[in-house]
């Protein structure tokens, strides 16, 4: 494995963080895009973090509430589910 050994200044690191946090304006987006086009490591880094979040969201379907849990909830609340 080779180290990713070119120096990133603080502004690029800040841009990457803002981009991943979806807090980036159009001008800064252009700046980051330009950097990423010339820096394969940053591209892999940004893409893979984005992909991780995307994958997690894709498997994160709302958990169905187990019937027993629902029954106990209505019982605790003294409500009838099928009123």
């Amino acid at each position, binding site marked *: *494995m080779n180290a990713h050994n070119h120096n990133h200044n603080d502004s690029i*690191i800040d841009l990457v963080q803002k981009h991943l946090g979806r807090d980036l304006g159009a001008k800064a987006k252009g700046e980051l895009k330009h950097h990423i086009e010339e820096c394969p490591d940053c591209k892999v880094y940004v893409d893979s973090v984005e992909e*991780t*979040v995307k994958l*997690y969201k894709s498997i994160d379907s709302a958990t169905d*509430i187990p019937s027993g849990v629902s029954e106990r*909830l*209505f019982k*605790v609340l003294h409500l009838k589910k099928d009123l």
Partner: protein
Amino acid sequence: MVNQLDEKTLIENAVNGDQSAMATLVDSHSARIYSLAIKLLQNEEDAEDVLQETFIIMLKKLNTFSGKSSLYTWLYRIATNLALGKLRSKQIVNPNEDINNLSESSYLGKDIRKWVNPVEKDQDQSIMKSCLEKAISKLPDSYRSVFIMRDVENNSTRQTAEILGLSEANVKVRLMRARLYMRDRLAENMKCVEVITT
């Protein structure tokens, strides 16, 4: 799920003691609240406690609900606060100190691994799901709550900071570390990495 107009009427009726309206409101929101609690607490028993406490509070305090936000947002905040209180009361020692050392700048100086989207590679979805669930369960609570609030529930940095009682800067740092941790665990577990050489 009931629409907002219907929900307003249901809330008015529930406040006036209509049990059918109360039941409909509970039925409409309980799955999402349970799902949120499971994600935050990683424990079914604790999640059920939070679910019940959330709706007990709803029925007691529905007359104080201002209607400025949606009912779900109101319930969401109640459930989140209850879940965080539960986590705090357990005083779990951070099981993963390594995550505190992760930073973006140190990361950009390390080996960078490129990994292929496992879905495109037709890898089993259930294996991927298991890897992700394992990774998120190993995240310390203080990081997992930020990741869930921000990336899964799509709250803004400011909303997340307000709900969790953190500064916005702290939310950003925790989110970044949580994502890096998740990314690395996923790459390790999926064995779908190829090293990019520079």
